[in-house]
């Protein structure tokens, strides 16, 4: 177990290093730079050149990269090229919106996906189960942005239950207001994620229904439903946990889209704005943070999966 965890940790670190090189190199391919953006359409070439030198953009790429990675090792993400504020502070600010959003979305996804997935498996070839699977198929095909627009139209504009967009100005100091602002965005992401989970849970549950231990339990007199719930579900959940690592990446992508749609001040929206401004130090910091989170979730899922699955423990070295 320790060897396994250590191995995954090394993979985690190597993943981050590779990501840092890819992120840095890809961003240098973008046309335009921050000095030109600051100077805008009124600045002179001399002003742009001066800004470039001041911001260190005229130095060789390798020197810039090594500087940045050196900072990363000290957990220093540097400063915004535009405002000069520490990147880590900005990200921490925005994570206060994005992390709860991701958590809530995941919760919605699980609440929608798992019970309906099990239901779809138990009642397959019957109206209820078929409806659940078809509903899942349709939801999985709906673009999150469109789902979000429909939700806004119904719950915020027509019914007026929830805000159409935005986040309270004073953040989490009024938790109820903050939570209300996250409901529709979380449902938007959660439904799409939930649809994926539903299909996954359904096939895992169908597999379990055919498994010997469920049949054995049924032979001992349990109903098939009870046998699945008592003995099959732990195995189904194991599969669901392992797919959650992959879903984490989906949550991040969902957050970028949905934060735009709902004007939420989260990491996703900041990322889009910073790419537009060519504030590359900030973009690098944001992408590294998101990468680290996705990799960390994957790492935790791997370790947890192994810890709770006795088969994986025995098979391993």
């Amino acid at each position, binding site marked *: 177990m320790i060897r396994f965890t250590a191995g995954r940790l090394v993979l985690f670190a190597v993943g981050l290093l590779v990501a840092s090189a890819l992120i840095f190199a890809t961003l240098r391919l973008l046309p335009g730079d921050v000095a030109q953006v600051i100077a805008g359409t009124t600045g002179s070439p001399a002003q742009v050149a001066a800004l470039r030198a001041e911001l260190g953009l005229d130095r060789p790429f390798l020197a810039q990269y090594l500087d940045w990675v050196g900072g990363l090792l000290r957990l220093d993400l540097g400063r915004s090229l535009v405002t000069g504020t520490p990147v880590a502070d900005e990200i921490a600010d925005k994570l206060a919106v994005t992390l709860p959003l991701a958590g809530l979305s995941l919760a919605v996804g699980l609440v929608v996906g798992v019970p309906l997935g099990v239901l779809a498996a138990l009642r397959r070839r019957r109206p209820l189960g078929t409806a659940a699977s078809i509903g899942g198929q349709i939801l999985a095909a709906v673009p999150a942005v469109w789902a979000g*627009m429909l939700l806004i139209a119904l719950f915020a504009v027509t019914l007026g239950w929830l805000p159409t967009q935005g986040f309270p100005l004073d953040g989490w100091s009024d938790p109820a207001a903050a939570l209300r602002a996250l409901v529709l965005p979380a449902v938007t992401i959660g439904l799409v994620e939930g649809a994926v989970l539903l299909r996954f849970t359904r096939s895992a549950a169908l597999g379990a229904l055919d498994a010997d231990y469920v049949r054995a339990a049924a032979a001992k007199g349990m109903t098939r439903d009870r046998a699945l719930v008592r003995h099959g579900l732990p195995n189904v959940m194991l599969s669901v946990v392992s797919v959650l690592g992959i879903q984490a990446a989906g949550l991040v992508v969902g957050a970028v889209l949905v934060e735009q749609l709902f004007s939420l*001040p989260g990491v996703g929206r900041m990322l889009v704005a910073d790419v537009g401004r060519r504030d590359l130090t900030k973009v690098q910091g944001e992408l590294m943070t998101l990468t680290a989170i996705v990799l960390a979730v994957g790492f935790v899922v791997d370790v947890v999966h192994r810890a709770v699955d006795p088969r994986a423990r025995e098979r391993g070295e």
Partner: protein
Amino acid sequence: MRTLPLLAAVTALVLVTAGCTSSPDPTGAPDDDATVTVGLVLEPTDLDIRRTAGIALDQVLIDNVYQGLVGRTQDNEIVDVLASSHEVSDDGLTYTFTLAEGVTFHDGAALTAEDVVWSLQQVADDDSLANHGDLAAVDAVTAPDESTVVITLSRPDSALLFSLTGRAGLVLEQQADNDLSTTANGTGPFTLEGWTQGDNLRLSRNDDYWGTPAAVGGVVFRYIPDPSARINASLSGDIDVQTAVDATLRSQLDGVDGLTVSEGRTTDKYTLAFNNAVEPFTDPRVRKAIRLAVDNDALIAATGGSAVDQGGPIPELDPGYRDLTDVDAYDPDAARALLEESGQGDLDLTLEYANVYPAAIGDVLTTQLKAVGITLTVEQVDFSTWLSDVFVAPSDGSPRDFQLSMVNHAETHDFGNWADPDYYFGYDSPAVQGLYAESLAATDPADADEALAEAAAIVADDAPAEWLYTTTTLTAIRDGITGFPTSSTTTRLDLSSLAATE
């Protein structure tokens, strides 16, 4: 079934978080402490008014937080602000300003003549500051006594006073050492309360304001880039005012109880610029043919109908405006004939513009140019890419590498761009440059106006661009909010007379 989880999930979360947000019925009484929430489109890159370009910054900070000796109304009239009066000598070389009394900065310090001299001198001397070029004619700035500032010019500059209503004329405190990127210390009726980058910028009333204090407690600018999200925010009451309503979505707000949509004039000039320095635009027949091929009225209708045909380089609110819409007005047959004559019967052209502007413009232009035999390829890119692809001149001195571009030139009084052969238009007309210099040197505003009008007529006739339209801007205002400007809102939002009822 598929709506069941959706309904269930939302209902559950609503129940969990319900409560606490019910506003009392409006009483109609003025509310001195109201906070007015304003939905805006573009957020400033940074708050450094001295270094960071972009009208998104002027829009919120000038007039409200920072002030200059003179300012401008929403119809571009010049008015005294920190100066109680100003006088221009007959030879146009000496500008004398008498300072208003009792002016203080937000940090409590009193405004001195030295602050004014230092502020202007800084911009005049330091070529890395924004709008440095506006003060090129300034020879000296002096303070003969505590309440007088004198600007001496080396040559007359009829544009100076208007320039002073912008960045170049703002007065900052010499002794202050606050970080201009994130804070502001001005003299205006509002103080900068805070800026949450990527979401909002907040102002509060300056209770120690030297003039009449603001009638509201504060203003929150919410940056909502998505047009339909802004509409929804207005409908649900999340914002009190929405500037620059997307004209194609206007019908969603018209007739809504408690909301009024007002129309206002702007200098937002949607300009289809040709790269005049390269083939095939060096041939005036090609340029004119494109102007003739564009049906401005159809384009305006397709983008929501909230604009007026412009015809020439100068919009109605700016000096030198004359109606030039008859020059090369829509005539596809004449366009085809000109293209035939120039031997360019089958042109392939590329239009590159920033993705902050509607895609519909590119679509309509593609169709209209197709009708005269021009195949248009449209590329929408982000603003930074546009800057490097189109706007910035290659450092080796070669011509810029683009064919057509489309920009909303929102700045007012910017005719000078047509008299600058190095600008991205690549338009080099000695006659226009001469007339523009003449307009600057004029000491009588009427002469300046006449010279500009003459220059504009030449530009329109030379067809270095097609002026698609000037926007009529739409502002959606909740009932009970008064004093919100409705014209020129892209460049300025003077909120000193804003008021709200409960």
